């Protein structure tokens, strides 16, 4: 049995289809990453999985429970750390945890023990009684992770847990997640913008774009599956007609994409293609204004599938876009 099963899941907001016939399954114990540009439908997907939004169609099972028919069973089995900071600034760390523990119906003695233990696990025990408004972004995020685990859920959902955190806090949040996962036998579904994080920490990655699932595999396989192991990024002073074809004909070149004046050439052998490229440019009398060679990263996978690095889209207004929303960090 899978911990999360998504079949043909669709969500529309009026004319706009935010999630379009998505299907995937997450096994127990996996760290499953959900990647996609802004507005791709990641948050909508995670909100449907966590009972916050009813799906338009499709089926959704979490921990074996149907999300639409048995939402309270789902809620009891999952811990959710939403994108917005949802700790109450006026309360202390313990009070925040206690509030949620009571909402989950945990008895007093067990509550006290669980809170103490979790605050220790996220290194916040010395700040237990301090008001959260005095916490840094990273501390608040760690407190939210502890809060999400207070009822010992089997599955943890995190929507961009490290967005807005400084690099050190990011690393500590991820280390904490890896440790908690090991110790508590968790299944984790996480969305992120940081490809390096996803690469290192996720067992499998789903790339979502325009509400559709465009790729799903382990980071290694995803990287191997896109043509070329190296990416050459080059720009030229002025290019003659048919230049793209010339580049495609370079030895070991596997594909060329031109965006504005930048050519991205994927290659199975970076050094060889690079030397050939320079020779071809000299022969054609074209000046190379910039050139870089990189090995394939998850960023390349991302760009390969989504085709662009930045996407602007209008979103349905929600609290997350409100000017009253407290900024992370």
């Amino acid at each position: 049995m899978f911990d999360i099963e998504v079949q043909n899941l669709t969500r529309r907001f009026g004319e706009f289809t935010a999630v379009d016939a998505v299907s995937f399954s997450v096994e127990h114990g996996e760290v499953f990453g959900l990647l996609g540009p802004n507005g791709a439908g990641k948050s909508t997907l995670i909100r449907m999985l966590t009972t916050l939004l009813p799906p338009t169609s499709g089926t959704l099972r979490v921990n074996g429970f149907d999300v639409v028919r048995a939402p309270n069973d789902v809620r009891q089995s999952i811990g959710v750390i939403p994108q917005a900071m949802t700790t109450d600034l006026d309360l202390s760390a313990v009070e925040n945890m206690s509030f949620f523990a009571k909402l989950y119906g945990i008895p007093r003695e067990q509550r006290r023990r669980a809170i103490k233990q979790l605050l220790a696990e996220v290194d916040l025990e010395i700040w237990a009684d301090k008001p959260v408004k005095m916490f840094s972004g990273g501390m608040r995020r760690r407190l939210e992770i502890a809060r999400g685990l207070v009822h010992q859920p089997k599955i943890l959902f995190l929507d961009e847990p490290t967005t807005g955190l400084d690099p050190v806090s990011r690393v500590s949040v991820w280390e904490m997640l890896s440790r908690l996962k090991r110790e508590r036998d968790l299944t984790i579904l996480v969305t992120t913008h940081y490809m390096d994080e996803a690469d290192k920490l996720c067992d499998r990655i789903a790339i979502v774009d325009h509400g559709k699932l465009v790729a799903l595999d382990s980071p290694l396989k995803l990287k191997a599956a896109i043509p070329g192991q190296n990416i050459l990024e080059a720009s030229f002073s002025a290019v003659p007609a048919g230049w793209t074809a010339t580049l495609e004909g370079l030895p070991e070149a596997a594909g060329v994409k031109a965006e504005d004046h930048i050519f991205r050439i994927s290659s199975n052998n970076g050094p060889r293609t690079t030397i050939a490229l320079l020779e071809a440019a000299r022969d054609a009398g074209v000046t190379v204004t910039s050139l870089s060679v990189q090995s394939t990263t998850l960023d390349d996978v991302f760009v390969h599938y989504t085709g662009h690095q930045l996407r602007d889209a209008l979103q349905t207004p929600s609290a997350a876009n409100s000017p009253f929303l407290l900024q992370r960090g």
Partner: protein
Amino acid sequence: MQRTWAIIERDLRRFRRSPVLVIVSIIMPLVQLVVLGYAFGGKIKNLQVGVVDQDHNVPAVRLQEMFQAVAANARTFNTVAYPDEASALRDLRNGQINGVVDIPPHFSRELLAGASPRLALVEDNTDQFSAATLEGTLGGLLTAYNSPAVPPRLSAVATLSVVEVYPYVPYIQYLLPGTIVLAIFVSAMIGGGIIFIDDKARGLHEGYLVTPIRKFELILGFTLAGAAKAIIAGVVLITLGSLIAGIPDPLNPLRLARMLLLVVATALALISMMFLIMVRISDPLVPRAIFGMLNTVLYFPSGAVYPTGSFPPWMKAIAVVDPFTYAVHGFKELALKNTGLMAISYDLAFLLGFTVLAMTAATLLFRRTL
């Protein structure tokens, strides 16, 4: 119940840490009580009345002596003599005097001849209250002037003797019941349904909507937490307000206990009404924008500041469904007449029934999802 209690506890902790809002919600109505109470309560005094005597004979002089008596004793108005009508009217229009009494040239002769001479009162009717006071005082004065010095042996005039059931109620006391309700309402506005809207605006609600709390538990929690704060405001008002307004025996424990019961019923009714109004609103600016309007629409038609009998039908219709009306009526009975619970049983029943209906409707309309 543990979940409901968690919501209440969270809210009261926040309140304990920043009680400013509730303190404001208590002070505002108290200030209004004192200022409005004294602004409308007192008798009007020291109006300026110009007198143009074109007669100068004994009856006219007797009339003027009576004016002086008013000026010296009740001080309702002072007289200023004018040589002619034109200059008096000019000062009236300039706002220097509030009215002009014109004693016409043949006043004395007509009076002595048994005809009914007419005395003219020209008044500045832009100020209705001063004009009405002038008319009343001068009317009374003329009645006294007309009554013969020696009454006829057989009098056939019917008179009305007035029996006042309660001690004199100054306007500030009349205003107190409305003020108590207003204080409860202000706390209901800032401490009721708006808390959920603020949670929504900050994104906090996403945190607890993914827990297994039920709709009703959530709404009950918000309602009871808001009611607790509104009750604090109400309790301060029934004690401090009674002292300020000068209610006789202000701290009578039995009456305070009855009033507390009504405070609880009023707080529950107003909080659940606010929650119902706000149940589908997400924008935190909306409640702030409609508060002023709600206040006007609910407070004034309730009879808190003026008797409902004078209202047009549409306002009377508001008064019938407005929980303010019943709360104000109940507090009037208790504060001004010190009645028992029987006198307010209908008010209590309405407020509690209203609470049940509003909470049910709010629970049905409440959206558990985003």
